[in-house]
């Protein structure tokens, strides 16, 4: 391979955080972070400060997704710049505190990397969530992780979208990475899901250690799924759901959904079919938390992203 002179240089990733409990009932992250707060040996790497952190302790205590409002939607510019006060929803106050500790968002003082640990009731396996198609550091990390866990797969969900992108707790960092592992019911800890998350994080931290040592990562490509459209459940005039995700679509995250394929099944057994223009790849199929966000699943399109070579400054 010819070496390219176009190498993107990044400062070494010295400050890394691992967030658990952004949603208080997503148990793998809560459990892992609590373990590492007690004994952080497993997450230590030479030259890296790795801070495990419970982002929404009140929600964790109640084993609920959130107390007032979804913390993982709360990191908007508006919320972060609002005058602080006890009258603000708990999660907005919490977002401001987190922004102070790990940010400020968008500034040079912000943490280098934040991993945000989540679970989903959807059959998404070990999904990595990428917020920007131009973050070469993150793309290289994801490329590294995917190779490390092969033949097991690690789909990458790209949430870069003018309308569908949301303001996550991890977005405070320069390089935000979401880990979404499922299927796991809310409030439940499954051993296999817990261990998968642990393994992915191990590889992620290995990558950071190698990067900090000065290793140059050559150009690479990463296959991703870019979010396209949010699909709601069919509802009646009162807003009640009148159909369920079809058995043929249930659990088929990342598999092609073609026009004409079954999509929903009404409670009395009628099939409703997908009527889009072309093949899409659905994900977040039947996520418990998204019923109230009017989302049965989200469609994605496959894309290959290129990342240039990277090395430490």
């Amino acid at each position: 391979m010819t070496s390219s002179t176009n190498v993107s240089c990044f400062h070494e990733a010295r400050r890394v955080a691992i967030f658990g409990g952004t949603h208080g009932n997503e148990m793998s992250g809560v459990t892992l972070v609590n373990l590492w707060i007690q004994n952080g040996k497993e997450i230590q790497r030479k030259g890296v400060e790795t801070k495990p952190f419970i982002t929404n302790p009140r929600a964790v205590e109640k084993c609920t997704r959130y107390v007032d409002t979804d913390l993982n939607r709360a990191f908007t510019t508006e919320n972060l710049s609002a005058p602080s006060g006890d009258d603000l929803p708990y999660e907005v106050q919490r977002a401001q505190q987190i922004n102070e500790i790990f940010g400020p968002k968008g500034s040079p003082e912000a943490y280098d990397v934040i991993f945000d640990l989540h679970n989903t009731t959807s059959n998404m396996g070990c999904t990595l969530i990428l917020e920007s198609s131009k973050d070469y550091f993150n793309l290289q990390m994801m490329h590294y992780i995917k190779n490390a866990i092969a033949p097991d797969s690690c789909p990458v969900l790209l949430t870069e979208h003018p309308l569908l992108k949301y303001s996550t707790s991890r977005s405070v960092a320069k390089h935000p990475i979401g880990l979404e592992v499922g299927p796991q019911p809310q409030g439940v800890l499954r051993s296999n899901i817990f261990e998968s998350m642990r393994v992915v994080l191990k590889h992620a931290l290995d990558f950071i250690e190698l990067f900090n040592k000065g290793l140059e990562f050559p150009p690479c490509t990463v296959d991703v799924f870019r979010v396209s459209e949010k699909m709601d459940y069919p509802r009646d005039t009162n807003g009640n759901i009148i159909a369920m995700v079809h058995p043929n679509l249930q659990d088929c995250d990342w598999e092609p959904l073609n026009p004409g394929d079954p999509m929903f099944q009404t409670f009395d057994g009628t099939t409703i079919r997908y009527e889009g223009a072309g093949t899409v790849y659905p994900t977040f199929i039947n996520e418990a938390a998204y019923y109230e966000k009017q989302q049965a699943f989200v469609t994605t399109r496959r894309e290959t992203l290129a990342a240039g070579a990277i090395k430490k400054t």
Partner: protein
Amino acid sequence: MKQTHRITIQASAKDNRKHTSKIWQMEPVSLPALSRVALCGGTHGNEMSGVYLVRELQRQKLEKAGSATLTTVISNPRAVQVCKRYTDTDLNRCFTDAILSSPVTDATPYEVRRAQELNTLLGPKGNVGAMDLLCDLHNTTANMGLSLISYSVQDWVIMHIYRQIQRKITSAPVRFIVLDLPLADAYSQDSLGKHGFSIEVGPQPHGVVRADIFNIMKEAVDQTLDWVQCFNSGCAFEGGEVDNVYTFVKSVYYPRDPETNQIAAAIHPQLQDRDFCLLHPGDPMFLMFSGEILKYEGEEVLHPFFVNECAYYEKSIAFHLARKMTVTIPPLQVKRD
């Protein structure tokens, strides 16, 4: 229950062999018709199959099953509204005689008041005015397939319904779980009916409705109502044996860290999703976060169920253990006046 034991001896003249067969036959039973049937969903507000099934039956205005009237109820509407198991306290533990007769004050939890309301609507428990048959719909995060749960294996109506469901439903394994408690201590809603049982279908995350799980529950309800109509119209159901009956023995609790009191392990991968399997002494039960394996140290081989049910974490219960048995049931027919 009187049992007749008959031994039939057939001597074959040709080859001079004696053929002995034992036939256990219970005396036929006749019971009053089931004229008032109740179907309840949303007893736990985040167990979605029952919520949507009851709503669908209400949308279809299903009010009769043959000659029987059908009452459909969303048991805990406030919990359903917020999609939580309960608001103050677990409704499905509020139906003991003691709680149903406790005086109501300003401090009385919502679910206790609601239990007393439901007792008026569907009971009174133990009284001639109660629903003839009450079926309560539940989901579990445990891999339990289709389970019927009740307090007795000698309620012949329930046992025959179980047998029909077991014979007719192939989309999920079908089992019967019996909790050995006297009526006064029976704490769940189904105990309000003269004949009562719960239908528990899993695995399904709370807050989610899966089509496959919904369809299994719907089949079970359809078979129940079919059986009721058959029974009321005079069908004779033959006696025999029903298997896959599990009696609750004890609960197994999560190990906790002595310093932090936090749960210190997950259900071991070899036990996860293996409800009703055989758990032998020495089999793995828990995988500690430290990597250590905790093994089952009981003396008896038992069957785990409700393995990793979300709602039981707050009670610290990892799973229950049961003994498996077979039950003989008598021929059954409706009592003719």
